[in-house]
């Protein structure tokens, strides 16, 4: 991860779009651009009267509609399940009523796949226009990822159709479609994981696991819908496929509500963690800075997303136990009070959080946040050690960006391997080195 990535996250408004591009994104966009150029160059050789215009328009419209109604997923991800269904079903279209031969391009050849790529690209572009008009991000990365995945599917599947898939039993067709879809889905997910790992600074292996765990239910739903659409088109024709959008919308509605409540949850904890600041117990911005540091360190240490979420919650609320103190600690720096008091604050905080009954893992992290890394059995959880280090760092450095001050704080922590875990401090040093001035 480069310093530039972190800078982009810290101050997104101050950077032009091209400055925010990293190598992974550039590679992806180059691949998508090559596909589009190849598709349109190939199109020049086509006879327009051989194109199944009806199918192209229907599926192009399907894809555009799907891009218009994208879906926000937890963790700031964006998916377009309906567009995905439209594009995949078009790429793997078998038969339409009244057509016995190829259904995408009437003459034999490899033009089918190129046409699929061209139609998908145009559909996506049209669907993205309203987003741009409304001032929302166009979601270029997501569209490029989907285009690459759909192209893979088209280039694998169309030759299989030409080889005579149509004459086989529906069970065989079903199996082939399922396998090729799985390949396409994996391409989509892996590219997504690659971009995300680059974005947030996670390890690729961890990012893949996170991505698969999060995406598989939606992928299953998209896959079933693709199969339904392909076999449905065989019976009822392409225009009538609009009927199948209904069930997809139901699924999408459910996911949207889920992602929505997750976002509200996080916002609420972020906001309410600030009560300690408003009450004068801690310095303004402390809990947010600690949580940001802790999450960055957790990523560096290869924590998976659910663990990171628990870590973020715990870091945000690590000082909540101070509310039970009679007088605020001067400046809120827990580093300056005695060990007993720190243990007490941690315990009270854990009790408050444990009260909810649903955040036991978070409460556990808060409970052991002041325990020394060595000399205790059992050792504190990794998350607690991360919070301890991040909290100490912020108590000593605060919002200051003075490199000497940060170096001194890190040195002090390094010299105390009993209190602070050496591995955590090493990653903290890396994270701190990437820090740039940011308004908090």
């Amino acid at each position, binding site marked *: 991860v480069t310093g530039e990535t972190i800078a982009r996250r810290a101050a997104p408004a101050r950077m032009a779009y091209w400055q925010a591009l990293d190598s992974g994104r550039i590679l992806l966009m180059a691949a998508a651009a090559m596909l589009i150029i190849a598709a349109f160059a190939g199109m020049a050789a086509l006879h327009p009267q051989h194109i199944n215009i009806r199918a192209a328009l229907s599926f192009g419209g399907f894809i555009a509609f799907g891009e218009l109604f994208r879906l926000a997923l937890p963790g700031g991800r964006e998916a377009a399940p309906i567009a995905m269904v439209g594009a995949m079903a078009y790429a793997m279209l078998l038969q339409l009523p009244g057509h016995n031969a190829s259904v995408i391009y009437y003459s034999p050849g490899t033009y089918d796949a190129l046409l699929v790529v061209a139609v998908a690209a145009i559909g996506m572009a049209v669907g993205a226009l309203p987003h741009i008009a409304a001032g929302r991000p166009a979601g270029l990365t997501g569209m490029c990822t989907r285009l690459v995945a759909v192209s893979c599917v088209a280039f694998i599947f169309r030759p299989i159709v030409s080889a005579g898939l149509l004459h086989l039993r529906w069970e065989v067709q079903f199996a082939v479609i399922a396998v090729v879809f799985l390949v396409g889905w994996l391409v989509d997910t892996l590219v997504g994981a690659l971009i995300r790992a680059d974005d947030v600074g996670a390890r690729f292996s961890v990012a893949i696991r996170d991505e698969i765990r999060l995406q598989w239910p939606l992928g299953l*739903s998209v896959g079933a819908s693709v199969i339904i659409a392909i076999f449905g088109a065989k019976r009822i024709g392409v225009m009538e496929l609009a009927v199948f959008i209904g*069930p997809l919308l139901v*699924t999408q509605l459910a996911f949207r509500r889920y992602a929505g409540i997750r*976002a509200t949850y996080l916002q609420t904890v972020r906001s309410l963690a600030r009560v300690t600041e408003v009450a004068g117990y801690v310095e303004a911005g402390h809990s947010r800075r600690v949580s940001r540091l802790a999450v960055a360190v957790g990523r560096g240490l290869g924590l998976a997303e659910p663990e990171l979420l628990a870590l973020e919650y715990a870091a945000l609320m690590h000082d909540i136990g101070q509310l039970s103190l009679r007088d605020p600690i001067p400046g809120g720096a827990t580093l300056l009070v005695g060990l007993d008091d720190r243990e007490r604050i941690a315990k009270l905080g854990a009790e408050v959080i444990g009260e909810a009954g649903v955040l036991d893992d978070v409460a556990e992290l808060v409970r052991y946040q002041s325990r020394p890394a060595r000399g205790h059995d059992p050792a504190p959880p990794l998350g607690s050690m991360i919070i301890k280090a991040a909290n100490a760092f912020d108590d000593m450095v605060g919002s200051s960006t003075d490199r000497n001050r940060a170096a001194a704080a890190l040195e002090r922590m390094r010299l105390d391997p009993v209190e602070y875990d050496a591995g955590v401090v090493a990653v903290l040093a890396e994270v701190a080195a990437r820090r740039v001035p940011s308004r908090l």
Partner: protein
Amino acid sequence: MVSRAARLYIGLVVSVAAVLVAILAERVMRQRDFWPSPTHLINPMAALITLQALFLVCDSGTTPMTSRQTRWSPGSSATLAAVVLLGPVPAALVGATALLSLQRHLRLAERLFNGAMYALCGLAAGEAYLACNGPVGRPDFSHFRTILLAFAAAATVHVVANHGLIWGVHRLNRERGIWTRDGLESSLTLLLASDLGYAALGLVVASLWPIMGWFAAVLVLVPLFVARWAMAQFAEQQRAYAATMSALCQAVETKDYYTRGHGDRVSRGAVMIARQIGMSTDRTEAIMFAGMLHDVGKLGVPTQVLQKTGKLTPDEFAAIQLHPMRGLEIVREIGFLFEALNGIFHHHERMDGRGYPMGLAGHEIPEFARVIAVADAFDSMTTTRSYREAKSIDFALSELRKGAGTQFDPVIVEAFIAAMEQEGWELPGPAEAPVDLTNVTVKDHDDPTAPLPVVDP
């Protein structure tokens, strides 16, 4: 729970369904045409059993959407598939499987009613389908437009019959919910979207049946289960969210011994009022959180001021008056309804315009704030304070009535009293003497019977 009128109504629905199904079944049997187009389906009996199984699976876990009343009932997709493939009577038989529902908590009366209701819905949808010239049996898709139109009519009839029959029960049971004016508007689109979405699944099953037979039902179950999984996740997150919120609010209240549980109780009172005046479920949820968080800004008021004995200086009084603003500062970034923020910010306004922080009067004060103000004052009066014992509920209600028009909105006060008569109110246990005297305030800014003493400037 079930009123006598509702019992009668359920009995009526069950007998009508039984008689109708019997008459129609007898008629088609006599015509030796139980399966209107048996030739097209290889094995209509197997299709019927598959669809019944599909219905049971769909029905095994209807997911609550937002409230007790609004539930997704994906079983309609199986019934509607039967309408296309098999005709009205088999559709009624598919619907009647609700009797055997796998949801264990259902009582016999509920099972009977559900079975009868879905049977009637299936019958009505099937007749509507036939009336629109919908061809029954293995669908011939060269006339897809006809099928689609007839199917749309059948689906609409199913949705209307379903909600109409349920509405009857709720009405007779005097339950208020989605069918109150405001509530209906807000959840109708959601209901229609989900119901028509599921209805479309019925057509999907029917379309794929000629190709893959029973496997079509399995294929359709996948998106259905994924949607249900997402809804379950949503419900779980929502519960976790409410629990976390409540725990954090309690943490905030630890500062003051006597007001512990205040946020929770105000939230409960506000929700009672919201239901009584027919607020939509979304708004009711928002006011629940607003009630919980309304005093969170008190943390920004210096403890010495809260704990001061004797009269307050104007500056100190101003510090107390700032607490709604502090509260707003804390919760502003939560992706809340705008209204909840308004409720927190304005909960100390008075109808006569002499409240704070803005001095709004009458209906300038947002509805949420007017609701919270009543619940807030009521809880303050009915709980013990360091300077007095808890007042009785009757006393508190009469104080609210006294303040109606000057301090409180009379409509809200009456709604609160009516809700109180219906649901009752559980008073918190008598407060024990505080162990630690450092956490005790000697005055309560919420108490309308004891205004804060302020030194005259």
